[in-house]
C-alpha cells in the first residue's frame, strides 16, 4: 500500500518537479535521486521493486569514471527513467 499523508504528497510533488524541471536531464536526475533517497530515509515514501529497479538503472546511466565524459545516451536514459520513476511514485 502506498504511503499517505502530507509528507508523502510533498515528497512526490518535489520529486516530480525536479524530474520535470528545465535543464539538463542528468542534472535533474541527480537532484531527483537525492530527494528520493531522502524521502526513503525519512520514511516519507516506501521502496517498491519497480522504483528500486528504476533507481538502480538510473544510477548506472549516471556512472562516470574520473576524467571521462558521460556518454551521449546518459541524458536520454535519464529522461526515460525519470518518467518511469514519476509513474512509480504513486505506489511508493
Amino acid at each position, binding site marked *: 500500500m502506498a504511503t499517505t499523508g502530507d509528507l508523502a504528497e510533498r515528497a512526490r510533488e518535489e520529486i516530480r518537479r525536479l524530474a520535470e524541471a528545465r535543464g539538463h536531464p542528468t542534472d535533474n536526475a541527480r537532484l531527483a535521486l537525492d530527494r528520493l533517497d531522502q524521502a526513503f530515509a525519512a520514511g516519507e515514501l516506501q521502496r517498491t521493486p519497480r522504483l528500486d529497479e528504476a533507481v538502480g538503472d538510473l544510477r548506472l546511466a549516471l*556512472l562516470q569514471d574520473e576524467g571521462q565524459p558521460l556518454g551521449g545516451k546518459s541524458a536520454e536514459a535519464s529522461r*526515460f527513467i525519470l518518467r518511469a520513476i514519476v509513474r512509480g511514485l504513486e505506489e511508493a
Partner: protein
Amino acid sequence: MERLFGRPRPSDDEKRRIPPGQYLTGKWPVLHYGSVPRTDLSTWDFKVWGEVERPLDLSWDAFRELPHTAVHCDIHCVTKWTMLDADFEGVSVATILDLAIPKPTARFALAHCEQGYTANLPLDVLRDEDVLLADTYDHEPLEPEHGYPLRLLVPKRYFWKSAKWIRGLQILDHDAPGFWERYGYHNEGDPWKEERFSER
C-alpha cells in the same frame, strides 16, 4: 556515395538498403550511457548460463581460439543513422549456443554487459548466421568506445540490441526486457518496421 550538406548522399541502390526514417552516415557515431569501461583481458571472461546443459566461462584466450567468421552488413541505430557496408569478425552466437547446449525450454537470451547494460533477444534471432560476438571491425580490434574487446552484432535489429562490452548471455525460458526495453524502447527493434519505441 556523394555528400550533401556534410552527410553522404546515397545512390539509388543504397537508398533501398536504408530503412524508413533513417539517414546515411559515413562515420560510425559513438552512443552509450555512462563512461567507456576499461578492460583487463587477463581477468576478462565471457559466461553463458541459465537454461543450458553446459554453462560456459570462457577466458579471452579461449574465446579467441574459437572459430571466427566474417560478416559484411549494414547497421541501423534507433537515433536514425544507418551505416552501410560494415565489416565485422567474431564468433557466431550459434557456435556459442552449440557449445552451451540450450535446454528444450530455452527461448530467449539476455545479453549482460559492463556497467549493468542488458539487451534481450529471442534465441532464434541470435541463431541467425549474421549474428556475432564481434571482436574486430574493419579488420582491427574494436575501438574502446565501440565495445572493446567484444560486442554483440545483430544487424537485423536496431543497434542498441548489438550490446557493447558484452560479458555474457543468460539463456531464459521467458522474455525479460533489457535496459532500454524497460523504459520505452521497442521490445523487438526491427528497423524495417520502424520499431523504435513501445507504448510504455
